């Protein structure tokens, strides 16, 4: 790995909180007090990316350091959770979990299953931008937006300054009531 913390946290025990629950739906409201929020490094959901005639399933991890990106797609801890009505920013390696992003097209769907609800998002933009280009995501957004990104280009080994961003907006999913 090129960045600094190769191997760190690999020996940690993570308190994963995700379990498949077929009873959970895409509608309604869920109380925050009923949610078991993840701690740093734990898996709390599963991302399903529908593209290339395939469903790519990626574990959703809370935290995005190198150790976490070896476990799945890593959510930036300064972004929001699905159902909170703002931006969920998730990164993944372009060699494994998020290699499939190169197939994605506008109009395709991404779903996130959590331990408190299921969420469906529609892709509205795919584009490569510089890693410091803050127009690629809006952490202040008042509309629920899922942003997945990975290093770009996909087939070049080494340090890259560009990222491939896939932006999707919420189609359906239970909203979280933060005060109950």
């Amino acid at each position, binding site marked *: *790995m*090129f*960045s600094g913390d190769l191997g760190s946290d690999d020996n940690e025990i993570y*308190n994963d909180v995700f379990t498949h629950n077929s009873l959970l739906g895409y509608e309604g409201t869920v*109380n*925050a*007090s*009923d*949610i*078991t*929020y993840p*701690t*740093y*490094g734990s898996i709390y959901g599963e991302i399903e990316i529908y593209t290339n005639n395939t469903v790519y399933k990626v574990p959703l991890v809370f*935290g*995005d*350091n190198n150790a976490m*990106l070896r476990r799945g797609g*890593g959510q*930036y*801890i*300064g*972004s*929001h*959770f699905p159902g909170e009505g703002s931006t969920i*920013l998730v*990164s*993944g*390696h*372009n*060699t494994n979990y*998020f290699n499939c992003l190169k197939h994605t097209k506008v109009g395709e769907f991404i779903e996130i299953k959590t331990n408190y609800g299921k969420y469906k998002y529609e892709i509205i933009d795919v584009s490569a931008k510089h*890693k*410091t280009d803050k127009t*690629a*995501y809006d*952490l*202040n957004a008042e509309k629920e937006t899922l942003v997945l*990104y*990975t*290093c770009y280009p996909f087939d070049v*080994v*080494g*340090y*890259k300054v560009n*990222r491939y961003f896939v932006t999707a907006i919420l189609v359906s999913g239970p909203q979280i*009531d*933060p*005060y*109950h």
Partner: protein
Amino acid sequence: MKKICSILLALVLLIVPMTLSVSAAGDINANEQKIITELKKELEIGNKKFALPKEYVTQAENYLKTVDVNEAQANEIIGYIEDGEEILIAEKITGTTDLKTLPVAAKQQILDLGKKAVAVTGATLTFDGKNVVIKNAEGKVVFDAAPVVKQTGAEVDFTAIALSVLAVVAILGGAIVVAKKKSLFVK
């Protein structure tokens, strides 16, 4: 700038008693909301406004979902925030970019406040000269001032690559020796 913002936020995050269960209610109670409101408040210094980066506030919010804060604790937390604000006002900081101009003594003051808060809660604040990371008593990260966008490129194990190249060289070398012994090379 990020260092100072990080330490200011540390005052908030680390004062929360870590004796509380991590499985505490995920809702934001009135006390926690007071803290979030204080964090979101724009500080007017001179003719300019100072505010914490949104992503730092969200990290605080996400942390507060895992604990329960009572009124006394919230007031103590807000007191620490206000102490940090007073330092900025005293130093006439008129914007986030001005933070790097803070005198060393003021920076140290803020850092010390952060460390004291950490000691109260049993948590740790790590500042390596570049980045601030805060971990709770269980050793889990609750705040990281690292850049938002991470490196997500190919994992390259240079050791494996070097060994592979050596292996290829060795095999080729061995093949050449064998070929020479068998007089396969034509002069």
